[in-house]
């Protein structure tokens, strides 16, 4: 496994990262005010939790997990995130919840595989995380046990996850860019943190890390082997020629400029997330996407 060697050299920085993480978690400031489940419901939609954490095909209970997620790194099954104390997250403290989404670490200290999009969710603010948790705890509990993942070595080796994190994961909540407008920052927050768009739309390298300089430039190896389009504003291969109305339409209703309606994964995203967002938030997303550096990256169907 020569590809992992550069990581070995980084072990000291990993140790440092762990220390920093521990320090942050220990001193994590609690946001003022009671958590608001109504706000949490909207954040829940914006973060698209329902799609992965519900096994619709298997007619599983809402948020009880068990959905099969086929990735190039193996088959993963999403866990139960209902407030059931035994099978779900009912016993989790606020701190547990924040640590899971910010650091990708379970209450028992195990590291989550990055199929759980914590590299994006890490950007969600404490306030939003606690509101989100408050909403989750209003959902009906389900007694559904989690299924073990089906992965091939080395991707199923959990002890390698910290190494992966040291290479590809930068924890910490979203920091607004004071040089940009409030609307731009809202768009950036929705796209990079809550919406976790890059989890599908950014190509990954052989170890599953985001390819540098290719943010949102699309990939031929999307979830379940699909083509994921380039959504940078490149005029030829991205969305550079789409009007704001075109972008609004795909996000709100799922209709593409040619009158086609998206199905598969993006169809779910429209149902669960973008179709439920307020117009102001969709506008912020569009503004942010337009401001990205255009990347020339053609995503094409394989010719047979």
């Amino acid at each position: 496994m020569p590809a992992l060697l550069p990581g070995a050299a980084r072990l000291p920085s990993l140790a440092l990262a762990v220390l920093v993480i521990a320090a942050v978690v220990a001193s994590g400031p609690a946001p003022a005010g009671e958590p608001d489940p109504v706000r949490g419901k909207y954040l829940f939609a914006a973060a698209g939790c329902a799609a992965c954490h519900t096994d619709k095909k298997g007619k599983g209970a809402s948020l009880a997990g068990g959905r099969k997620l086929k990735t190039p790194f193996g088959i993963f099954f999403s866990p139960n995130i209902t407030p059931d104390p035994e099978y779900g997250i009912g016993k989790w403290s606020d701190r547990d919840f924040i640590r899971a989404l910010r650091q990708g670490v379970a209450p028992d200290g195990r590291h989550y595989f990055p199929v759980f999009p914590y590299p994006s969710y890490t950007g969600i603010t404490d306030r939003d995380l606690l509101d989100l948790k408050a909403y989750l705890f209003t959902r009906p509990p389900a007694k559904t046990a989690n299924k073990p993942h089906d992965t091939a070595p080395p991707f199923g080796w959990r002890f390698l996850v910290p190494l992966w994190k040291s290479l590809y994961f930068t924890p910490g909540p979203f920091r607004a860019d004071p040089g940009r407008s409030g609307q731009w920052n809202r768009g950036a927050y929705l796209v990079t943190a809550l919406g976790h768009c890059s989890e599908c739309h950014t190509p990954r390298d052989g170890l599953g890390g985001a390819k540098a300089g290719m943010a949102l430039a699309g990939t031929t190896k999307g979830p379940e082997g699909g083509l994921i389009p380039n959504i940078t504003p490149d005029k030829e291969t991205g969305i550079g020629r789409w009007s704001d109305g075109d972008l609004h339409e795909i996000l709100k209703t799922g209709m593409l400029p040619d009158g086609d309606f998206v199905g598969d994964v993006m169809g779910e995203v429209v149902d669960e997330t973008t179709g439920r967002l307020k117009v102001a938030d969709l506008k912020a997303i569009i503004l942010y996407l337009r401001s990205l550096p255009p990347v020339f990256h053609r995503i094409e169907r394989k010719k047979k």
Partner: protein
Amino acid sequence: MKKTAIRGLKTAILSLALAGLIALPALAQEGAIKYRQSVMKAVGGHMAAMGAILKGTGGQARDLKVHADAMAALATVAANAFPEGSDFGMTRAKEVIWENPVEFKKVVQVFIDESAKLAKITASGKFKAAAAQFLHLGKNACATCHKKFREKKK
């Protein structure tokens, strides 16, 4: 010597016949798939055109009826565009269409009913109601069917 030549000829004839047997249905399937894709392109074309008119980004309100009527007619055509055996070849139509025809027919019926309703509302001149029905059609017919019965792009 002669025997081997005849044998060779026989093999050639048999191979050709077998190849023909395989190739003919395959060609027929390719034709059915191409037809289906053409119908779906027309469906998409009318959806995009109606979207433009309803949002006021292009076209003219009085032409909405042309597209709505065409869509209602095309829905009945689309119902016939999935013949048995047309799941093999360059198609994103999922096998489940033929494995579970009852489920598939339900969604196709939604397409037929909802597009007929859109044509009716459009004919009555109620622009706002037409816009709502247009979205309803897109969500409940187009998107629902694509989620269940269309393979992702590969």
